[in-house]
């Protein structure tokens, strides 16, 4: 057990790519928590997909020992958090377990949308915030300007902010000293009944469910029996320990400490993040506030390209859901695609991550259908239906009106691109709420429909601003609007997996864009194929894909027979990647790509 005054707990937060994980590397290295020879870049990003994309998805906790300049030994618990907006929930949850935040700002970029969003979360959690100016080794680094910006936009003192290069290691000692001197020690009572916060939990193939906890009061020892206060379930504790960053068993955790426990808990589903953990006997009666659970906001269908792989898909989805409470799924049947799952995600990146993992770790080719948000369908009889899938839209005669989710989006952008950003938001049915300036950067706040944003808004924003804009959003409310279901007919047959909800005023435009896209995405067949978009029975856009005219090998002699036969074999396998709709083969990627708009 560590004396409270010698503990410092903090999260490292920042906009995407501003260097959180790299800073964590340096803190780990400088304190010799990991030997130099075992270090690797962004060592906490251990999932394949994190390493491949160079981003953090899952927050990670590490305990480090640090002997400060005052000669005292301190225990520092750091939590490296993800930067992407889809995983904002991970950040706010992590913050609840600690007392302070290192706010990392890339000094060559400045304050971005997630910098702001994280500051708000940190303030809500009552955190002490230590600003860090990172990447000072870059020629474009401008600490003075960025410090000023932090003061202007965020309103925290930054003139004396520590200047760091997480790459070269410059400023790391100062950072460690600031952690010790500027962040508060945790409070707690070692003699009070046990009160611990269940911060996170995940499944480990060897150890079963691992629970990340923060002890508020009391002490927890191996072998004791604990109770989860929300479910009243009781478990004997098998093991307790800390992350350095690999798991290391210890005997006891005391107030202010962060660590893990295992207790033969079968499924992640048996644990509630934010729950209060206490002893079975003589436990506390006070329950912590708990967290709002993460709600999926983007929904799409996942279907196996090869129908025979449905059971494998079920298996993989169940396994992934075990470890990811924010990912939801239910079985879905599509007239066109057969059996699959309707899945809910925190955002498009989350969707991509899960889809990638299914395709790679479980080797299943997937068809992903158009992403959608949840609409509220108010029926004539006064009831309300949550619509997750446009294909399930009830008979219009029974529907009174529809509501869609709205968001408040904050966009930071250099002045010269402001015009393009405003146009983009306007095109997506946005209502401007605010426009302010921080130096030469504009900060615009828009009220936007979520469905106009989930899909390709972020890509478009990046492309119209050459990557210089940043974006963050929060859900606000459901609001009534003139929404309709648009169906797509390929060769006169409706393809339910291509149905989308659109605003009536934008339906023609969307319909036209979609049929034009599909015309490019579907390969020519031996016959011509009409492609139509329709609302109800009314066709609003139409294109015709001409019949194939030329596909023959010019030269085929005695030496070509084997090669040509093997090529036909290969093409036969490739065709399995397409799905047949009537007589038409639609490639798997068409379902998503048909929605991308070039504006």
């Amino acid at each position: 057990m560590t004396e409270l005054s010698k503990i410092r707990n903090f999260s490292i937060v920042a906009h995407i790519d501003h260097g959180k994980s790299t800073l964590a590397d340096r803190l780990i290295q400088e304190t010799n928590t990991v030997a130099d020879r075992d270090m690797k870049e962004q060592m906490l990003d251990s999932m394949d997909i994190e390493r491949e994309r160079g981003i953090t998805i899952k927050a990670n906790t590490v305990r480090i020992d640090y002997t400060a300049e005052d000669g005292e030994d301190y225990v520092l618990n750091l939590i490296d958090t993800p930067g992407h907006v889809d995983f904002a929930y991970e950040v706010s949850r992590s913050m609840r377990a600690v007392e302070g935040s290192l706010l990392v700002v890339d000094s060559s970029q400045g304050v971005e949308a997630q910098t702001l969003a994280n500051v708000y979360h940190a303030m809500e959690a009552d955190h002490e915030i230590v600003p860090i100016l990172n990447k000072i080794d870059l020629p474009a680094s401008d600490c003075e300007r960025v410090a000023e910006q932090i003061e202007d936009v965020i309103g925290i003192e930054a003139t004396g902010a520590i200047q760091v290069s997480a790459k070269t290691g410059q400023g790391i000692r100062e950072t460690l000293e600031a952690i010790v001197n500027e962040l508060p020690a945790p409070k707690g009572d070692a003699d009070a009944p046990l009160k611990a916060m269940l911060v996170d939990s995940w499944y480990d193939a060897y150890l079963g469910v691992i629970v990340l906890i923060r002890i508020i009061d009391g002490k927890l020892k191996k072998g004791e029996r604990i109770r989860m206060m929300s479910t009243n379930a009781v478990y004997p504790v098998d093991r307790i320990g800390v992350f350095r960053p690999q798991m290391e068993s210890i005997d006891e955790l005391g107030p202010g400490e962060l660590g893990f426990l295992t207790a033969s808990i079968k499924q992640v589903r048996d644990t509630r993040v934010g729950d209060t953990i206490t002893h079975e006997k003589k436990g506390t009666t006070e329950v912590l506030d708990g967290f709002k659970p993460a709600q999926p906001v983007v929904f799409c269908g996942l279907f196996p390209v090869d129908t025979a792989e449905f059971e494998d898909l079920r298996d993989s989805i169940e396994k992934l859901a075990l470890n990811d409470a924010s990912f939801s799924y239910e079985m879905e049947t599509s007239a066109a695609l057969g059996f699959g799952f309707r899945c809910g995600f925190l955002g498009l990146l989350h969707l991509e991550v899960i889809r990638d993992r299914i395709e790679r770790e479980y080797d299943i080719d997937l068809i992903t259908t158009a992403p959608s948000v949840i609409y509220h369908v108010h029926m004539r009889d006064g009831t309300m239906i949550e619509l997750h899938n446009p294909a399930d839209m009830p008979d219009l005669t029974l529907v009174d009106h529809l509501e869609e989710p709205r968001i408040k989006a904050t966009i930071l952008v250099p002045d010269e691109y402001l015009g393009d950003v405003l146009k983009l938001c306007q095109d997506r049915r946005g209502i401007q709420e605010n426009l302010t300036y921080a130096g030469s950067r504009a900060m615009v706040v828009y009220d936007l429909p979520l469905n106009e944003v989930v899909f390709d808004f972020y890509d478009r924003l990046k492309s119209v601003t050459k990557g210089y804009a940043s974006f963050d959003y929060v859900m606000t409310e459901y609001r009534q609007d003139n929404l309709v279901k648009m169906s797509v007919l390929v060769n006169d047959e409706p393809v339910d997996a291509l149905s989308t909800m659109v605003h009536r005023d934008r339906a023609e435009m969307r319909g036209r864009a979609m049929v034009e896209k599909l015309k490019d995405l579907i390969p020519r067949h031996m016959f011509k194929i009409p492609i139509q978009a329709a609302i109800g029975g009314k066709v609003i856009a139409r294109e015709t894909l001409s019949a194939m005219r030329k596909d023959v090998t010019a030269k085929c002699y005695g030496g070509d027979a084997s090669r040509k036969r093997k090529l036909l074999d290969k093409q036969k396998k490739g065709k399995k990647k397409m799905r047949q709709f009537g007589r038409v083969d639609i490639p798997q990627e068409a379902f998503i790509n048909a929605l991308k708009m070039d504006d």
Partner: protein
Amino acid sequence: MDAWETAFLAEIDRVGRETGPRVLDSVFFGGGTPSLMPVRLVDRILTRVRETWHLSNNCEITLEANPTSIEADKFRGFRDAGVNRVSIGIQALNDPDLKKLGRLHSVSEAMTALETACNTFNRVSFDLIYARQDQSLPEWQAELNRALDLEPDHLSLYQLTIEDGTAFGDRFAKGGLRGLPSEDLSADMYFATQEICDHKGLPAYEVSNHARPGQESRHNLIYWNYGDYAGIGPGAHGRLTLDGEKYATETHLAPNSWLSSVSANRSGESVRDKISEQDQYVERLLMGLRLHGGILIQHLSSISFSPNASSINELRENGLISVDETRLKATPEGRPLLNAILRKLLED
């Protein structure tokens, strides 16, 4: 005797022992530039061939030639050795395009070589490549008419094809090939080619081959009719029926590995695969449907696989194939879509 000659003769002996006495309808010196071979080697090979197999009356003996003066100078020698047909790779009738195709000859050189060939051999064919970079339909029509004015009895007219693993394929993958015709333009060029050649009495008898009736290449007809052929020399493919089984054979592609294999193992062969009934069926389809005459149904049903009936119906309805009591054929509309037809016929 030089090593190459020894090796060729040894290979003829080896294949001869395997096939036993058979009647040869044709011999073809092709692949690369056989016209660079010494006349003496061609002579030795043909002599050994005659000693090994029985040659049919008017056996067709073709040699592929490049239209350069050096090679044309040897035409008389080749004829005396027994060659009775040449196929000249002229490729294009304008110099800039020849350069783009990576050819070393000029049009005027090609014309001289063609004239020499016509004065030396009874049967002369030449090759042109069309649907080239930046080629327009009228340009090709004019070029084809000029070619037909030379009054050939046989013409091979290939659409430029970009294949992976070739120099062209690499350039294409790197984006270095611009101005290739669209699918629609290449279809227009193909149909214009058929019309012009029909009109001048050189109808197509195969996707890319045109002849005055009776002047078809007998050798290539063997490939398309899925007959037996032995492959001799580096990189040569063969199809041989031995003891009732059909085999695909290949020899080492790199000339030096072939040579050392022949001397060390007494065989240049690198592949000998028994072809399954299913694969024979596929090969017969993919070769035979190239011919205007199509495939004898009796040949298809002699093997235990039959085409997918619903595919056949769909293709017939779309007017792409025709079936009567004796033959399965691609229609004139279907022939330029042969790859798609094959994929359809081979669906499960």
